[in-house]
Each structure stands twice: as structure tokens, then as C-alpha cells.
């Protein structure tokens, strides 16, 4: 199907975009990569009166990497973030998770910041932002504000963004030295949204596990972050009982059934994938020690 009619404007600068969004208020919708919004328009599940197309704001097509983390501007495409070696060396979870986001052709167009703004609880990057304890940099005609990842995701497809606001960038902090990470998921086909998936980070100091944390997609209305350190604290990485962590995680999740998986099957996946992901992250912890 085809999109319904809408008024369209393509500002050339951030200030112009903020003015247009401010004027449009709750009638306005940002168009970034369009890889989520245009399907919704084509299926007529969304019918915004005004679209503010940010694809000419090349000033926002940036990645700024320092030892502390990676700041991703609103017009950086998933592919740009995935292939950036500096970003990978500071926060390797970005590339690992992006490889599981849709297909290369979708990633050429979709933006990483757009997938955060979209707040799909199945979107891999929401879990990465949550697990890294990242920050959303929000801009509007009224001035900038910052929102912590833990306050940003409110419900399925619902974020802390208000009408008139643009998500200008997000920052994915680096992990502490000695941390290994991975992203593991089960999807029906390669590139599909996950039936269950998680980002995992394990910190090892002097050969002993000091922290084991996870963030899940497709099991809760927002990316769910769990601290699973207790069962493995002080264990050496190869001997740690990762299945015990998986069992704790399965107890703490209340997944919903849908046409692809029952709640029980999802909870089973939480257990198995948590154990697998933590073991993999722990094995990398030594190698990735900064």
C-alpha cells in the first residue's frame, strides 16, 4: 500500500529542524532512515499530519569516539556505526549487536539513533543502550536535555521524547577495563527480529568474575537489565556456573506469548541464552581487557 498524504519539510540545519518540529507539535513526526516509519505509513498504521525529514542534516551524520564511549549522531546509519573501527575498539558491542539488526540493505539506510527513538522492545540497540548505561541527547526549540537510558524507554514504541523534540544523538559508554561482551539471539530467520535475545557483559579482575550483567530484547515491554553477578561472584571464568545465572534470569522475566513463541518457550530461551552469552562474554573478558 501507499502512504497517506502528509505535509513534508526537509530542513537544512538543526535549528531549522527544531523550529519545524516545535511548530508542528504533536502533529509532527521525524523521518530519519524511514526503515520503521515508512512501513508503518505504507501499511497505514501511522498517519502523521506533518513529516520533518532530517536526511539533509548532514551535521548529524557523525560518530565521536573517545576512550569513554561513542557518541552517535542522529544521521549516522547503522552501517556507518557497524563498520567504524574506532567505535568497535571502544565499545565492541555496537558492531556485535548491529550485525543482528535486520539485513545489510536495511542497515544502509536505518539509523542507530532512530532505532533508539523508535523504542521497539525487540530492537537490539535499545538493549545495548540500556546495558551500557547510555545517554539520550535530546534537542528542542526550548533547549537541550539529557535522559539516562534507564529513564528513556517507557513502553513498547514509547520513549521519553516529547512532541517537538529531536533525539540529536545517543552516547554508548565504554565498559570498565576487563569487561567482555556479546549479543546472542534466536530469530526465526537470519535478520528477523529476535524471539528472545540479550546483550551480556562480564567483568573479570585477577581471573575472578566481579560482575555479570545482561539486557534483553523481546521478553519485556522495555529493554530489561539484570544484574546476575551473585551466583558467580568470585568464581574463575571457566568454572563459573552460568546456568545458575540463567535460572535466576528466567525467574525474573515474565515474557508474553505471541504467534512465534509461547511464554514458556521464551522463558526457556532466557535461561539457555543467558548461560551461553555470559560464558562467551567471560571468555572474551581477558582478551578485551584494556
Amino acid at each position, binding site marked *: *500500500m*501507499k*502512504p*497517506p*498524504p*502528509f*505535509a*513534508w519539510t*526537509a530542513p537544512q540545519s538543526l535549528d531549522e529542524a527544531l523550529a519545524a518540529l516545535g511548530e508542528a507539535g504533536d502533529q509532527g513526526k521525524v*523521518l530519519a532512515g*524511514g*526503515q520503521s516509519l*515508512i*512501513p508503518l*505509513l*505504507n*501499511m497505514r498504521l501511522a498517519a502523521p499530519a506533518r*513529516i520533518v*525529514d532530517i*536526511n539533509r542534516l548532514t551535521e548529524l551524520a557523525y560518530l565521536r569516539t573517545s576512550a569513554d564511549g561513542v557518541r552517535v549522531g542522529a544521521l549516522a546509519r547503522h*552501517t556507518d556505526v557497524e563498520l567504524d573501527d574506532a567505535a568497535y575498539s571502544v565499545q565492541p558491542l555496537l558492531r556485535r549487536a548491529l550485525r543482528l539488526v*535486520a*539485513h*545489510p*540493505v*536495511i542497515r*544502509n*539506510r536505518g539509523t542507530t539513533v532512530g532505532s533508539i527513538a523508535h523504542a521497539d522492545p525487540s530492537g537490539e540497540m535499545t538493549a545495548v543502550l540500556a546495558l551500557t548505561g547510555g545517554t539520550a541527547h535530546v534537542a528542542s526549540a526550548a533547549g537541550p536535555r539529557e535522559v539516562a537510558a534507564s529513564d528513556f524507554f517507557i513502553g513498547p514504541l514509547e520513549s521519553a521524547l516529547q512532541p517537538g523534540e529531536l533525539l540529536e544523538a545517543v552516547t554508548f559508554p565504554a565498559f570498565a577495563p576487563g569487561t567482555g561482551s556479546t549479543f546472542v539471539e534466536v530469530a526465526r*530467520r*537470519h*535478520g528477523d527480529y529476535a524471539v528472545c535475545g540479550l546483550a551480556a557483559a562480564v567483568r573479570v579482575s585477577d581471573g575472578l568474575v566481579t560482575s555479570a550483567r545482561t539486557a534483553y530484547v523481546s521478553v519485556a515491554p522495555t529493554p530489561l537489565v539484570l544484574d546476575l553477578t551473585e551466583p558467580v561472584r568470585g568464581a574463575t571464568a571457566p568454572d563459573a556456573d552460568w546456568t545458575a545465572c540463567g535460572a535466576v534470569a528466567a525467574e525474573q522475566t515474565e515474557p508474553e506469548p505471541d504467534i512465534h513463541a509461547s511464554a514458556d518457550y521464551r522463558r526457556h530461551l532466557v535461561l539457555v541464552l543467558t548461560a551461553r552469552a555470559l560464558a562467551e562474554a567471560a571468555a572474551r573478558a581477558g582478551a578485551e581487557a584494556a
Partner: protein
Amino acid sequence: MTEQQHEVDVVVNGVPHHLSVPARRLLSDALRHDLGLTGTHVGCEHGVCGACTVLLDGRPVRSCLLLAVTAAGHEVTTVEGLGTAEDMHPVQRAFRECHGLQCGFCTPGFLTTVAAFVAEAPDPTEAEAREAISGNLCRCTGYQNIVASVLRAAELTREGGATS
């Protein structure tokens, strides 16, 4: 009600075009209906099937998920821009040699996707070839011959690079 028309300048297959279209015109429809370039096929219009894939400034993208107005000022390459019947693109030669198509509905999307892929990865493994086409659906072939075509296209590209 008449919708507001927007003026769009876009280069398609090396030729500059000027269009007057409503903002909601998808690039796929602009190519097919406004420019008569019906090589770009439209299957699902929500990004899943890959039949509508074109190159935007050299990178493969879904033309059904791009507004024509957003493409203004950019260069688009459709399957018509890859090669001609007399002078086929290496990817087109490979698909013919390896029987990489049956009904041909999905083929334009595969050809554009694979043309960009082999340019960047001229020596892919079979696993990489499969991943490269994982976003394109084909209802006929069962994919085996398409995978063979991707590997053959890479081979032809390497040979071309060695002789020229």
C-alpha cells in the same frame, strides 16, 4: 483535493531527471510510474522482500522505503543501469550462466544487491554470499543457484579486475 507537488532533481542511471511529485510518492513508484523504469519490482512495500532494491549513491537500499523527495540530489542506479543485453554486468552474466532465476520477479533486487556486494567483497565465502542475500526473498529457485551465481559473479569480477 489536490496535493502539494514537490520539485525533485535526481540522477537515475547517470541521466538527470526532474520530477513533480507529492511528498508521499515512494521512490519505487517514481521510478516505475513517473520514469517508466519498470525493472525495479515491487513485492511487499514494507522492506521485507527486497525486490525493489536500488543503489542510492552506490549503496543498496529499499526503494519502497524511501520517499522520492528524500532522494532529491542523489544518484540512483536501478537494474536498467547495471548493463545492457549486449553488454551485461558481471552479476547479470553470472545469474544467466548459473540459472540464478526462474520467473525473474525477485531478480532485479538480487542483481542490485549482489552488484554492490561483489564490488566490496570480491572473494566471499559461501557463508558470506548467503548472508549478503539474506534480505532478498525468492519464491522460485530455492536459492541454491542464486548462491552459485553470487560466487560466480565474484569470480567474474576478480577476473575482470585482473585483465583490465
